[in-house]
């Protein structure tokens, strides 16, 4: 096996695993940039995965090959609505945002499994029949060397994820909306004095994170697991959270970190077939994302700093 074959095994798998993480991590960026910590990303992914699979199973006959796309839309909507709970608790009721996020995670898993048992009479759904097809990107896949690596035989959702990261960067850093979003996350009182509606901005940001988290969960379930059970989303939301931090609360950084974590995941799965990785115990690859995030936070890999007001409810008139 030469180096190129190895890359051809690793890189497409890495992109494949990274897509759900990118979506969810971008959601986290929006929420935390507005000053609302979102530990509930895991739960939002669970709800998205649940919605995506249930929609797909229910409507596959009516919508045919459009089904997975509509399932993603459904997951976006349900994710955004579900995240309203987190917004109400942490913005309006001034709840501890971490506690509220923990409750989101519990509620998402409890509610979706409850409904699965109610609807299907068992703890696990059937496999979906209609998924996404792998595509070769026109023109780009014909480029020698990198074409087959990056643009062939991949899911279109992966490219959407990467494009969305750049769109998010543009929104957060180049538009008035983004400026306001960052302002309420850094110094809500100053933003308030300038006439920005802090609570409203935070509601919007949390709902965007719900929509993207739901999308991430649905993409994971549709492409990778193809069904829904208690173990479908196990820690991917927290890995997305790690990607967001490792990416220093920046959309492009978060995307880069998610791709990197996807690489670690893919190595832990396909690593056994690669000669010089065969002897590396998979545990090192499994814990790599978390260890690296800790090192990044500790300042060994550049300093990662959270938005200043993240985690604190804004109370008008309080110094």
């Amino acid at each position: 096996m030469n180096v190129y074959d190895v890359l051809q095994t690793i890189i497409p798998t890495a992109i494949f695993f990274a897509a759900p993480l990118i979506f969810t991590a971008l959601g986290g960026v929006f929420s935390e940039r507005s000053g609302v910590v979102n530990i509930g990303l895991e739960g939002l992914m669970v709800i998205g995965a649940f919605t995506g699979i249930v929609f797909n199973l229910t409507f596959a006959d009516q919508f045919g090959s459009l089904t997975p796309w509509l399932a993603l839309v459904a997951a976006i909507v349900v994710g955004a609505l579900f995240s309203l709970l987190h917004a109400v608790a942490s913005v309006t009721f001034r709840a501890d945002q971490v506690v509220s996020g923990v409750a989101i995670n519990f509620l998402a898993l409890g509610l979706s499994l409850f409904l699965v048992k109610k609807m299907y009479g068992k703890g696990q759904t059937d496999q979906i029949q209609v998924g996404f097809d792998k595509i070769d990107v026109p023109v780009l896949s014909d480029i020698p060397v990198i074409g087959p690596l990056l643009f062939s035989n991949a899911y279109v959702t992966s490219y959407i994820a990467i494009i969305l990261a750049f769109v998010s960067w543009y929104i957060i850093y180049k538009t008035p909306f983004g400026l306001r979003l960052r302002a309420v996350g850094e110094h809500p009182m100053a933003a308030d004095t300038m006439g920005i509606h802090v609570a409203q901005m935070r509601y919007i940001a949390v709902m965007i994170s719900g929509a993207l988290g739901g999308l991430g969960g649905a993409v994971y379930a549709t492409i990778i697991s193809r069904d829904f059970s208690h173990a479908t989303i196990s820690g991917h939301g927290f890995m997305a959270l790690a990607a967001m931090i490792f990416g220093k609360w920046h959309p492009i950084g978060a995307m880069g970190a998610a791709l990197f974590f996807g690489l670690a995941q893919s190595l832990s799965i396909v690593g056994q077939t690669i000669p010089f990785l065969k002897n590396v115990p998979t545990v090192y690859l499994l814990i790599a994302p978390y260890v690296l995030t800790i090192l990044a936070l500790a300042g060994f890999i550049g300093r990662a700093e959270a938005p200043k007001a993240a985690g604190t409810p804004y109370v008008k008139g309080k110094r």
Partner: protein
Amino acid sequence: MRSNRHQQFLIPLLAVLLGMIAGSIVMLVSGYNPVAGFSSLIYGAFGDAYYIGETIRQTTPYILTGLAVAFAFRTGLFNIGVEGQLIVGWLAAVWVGVSFDLPKIIHLPLAILAAAAAGALWGLIPGVLKAYVKVHEVIITIMMNYIALHVTNAIIRSVLSDEGFKSEPIKQSASLQSEFLEAMTYHSTMHYGILIAIAAAFVMWFLLERTTKGFELRAVGFNQHASQYAGMNVRANIILAMVISGAFAGVAGAMEGLGTFGNISTKAGFTGLGFDGIAVALIGGNNAFGILLSALLFGALKVGALEMPSGAGVPTELVDIIIALIIFFVASSYMIRWLLSRGQKGAE
């Protein structure tokens, strides 16, 4: 205006009540009978000696994880890593339990201490990072949870078994299991751990409320600058608080390893005991004796839930929904306080 002390009891009670009401509504909406649901839940938790034994068994680790979370809360820290600290504690207890042949009087305490030490070590890392680099402990402890999970699985596969998925059973000399308690409760899995858990609650109360160190720990949690000015070592206190919290969580793992299961298996996901500990601590008002009660409540909910599918056709997950909503209501205590103050104004 009624006192805050009064509200301290009222808010958790109201949160539990609201959670139950919301649970009933969920049952009604999805076409189940809430009365049948709750009565089978209560039967499944306290119906006869067997169920009571199981409930107490489930309460045991809840007390300890609740204490772990509460200890951190009281010292101004949020330890969301109780789950990981519990897993490494479980691993350490079983490791000591299978590797030595010692008299029980030495072996059992050694296994529990090993669990406490492992949990403490897992708390030390976020403590040090918080104290010296000012990194928020929530993120670090979440990451430490996953590291604990994967490392523990790897150790079970490579060291405690021959590429298998579970360890040998622990030696009898390290076991908390009790024929006496099992016979008394129709062969439930109840074990002596409950005594250790209750003792731990007493230790936490004494440490925080009756010692100078406890005062310092609370002071640092309340106001770091004032404590610094008063001559306390803020960094050392933050680290110590995380270490003690982690030790409680580690002992909770020992309850599972030495009492309930007698071994350790590889895990695909978390046990949930650590995360539920957050709910236990919040409902218990972060108070040692409150936690004994709230741990019993959550133990009863979890064990009683197992009876709901056969008794009333309700999926066990209903209880997870109720627990999640209870956490929401406690977290949103601002809302409850606001409602209470409105109610009082109306009454005047």
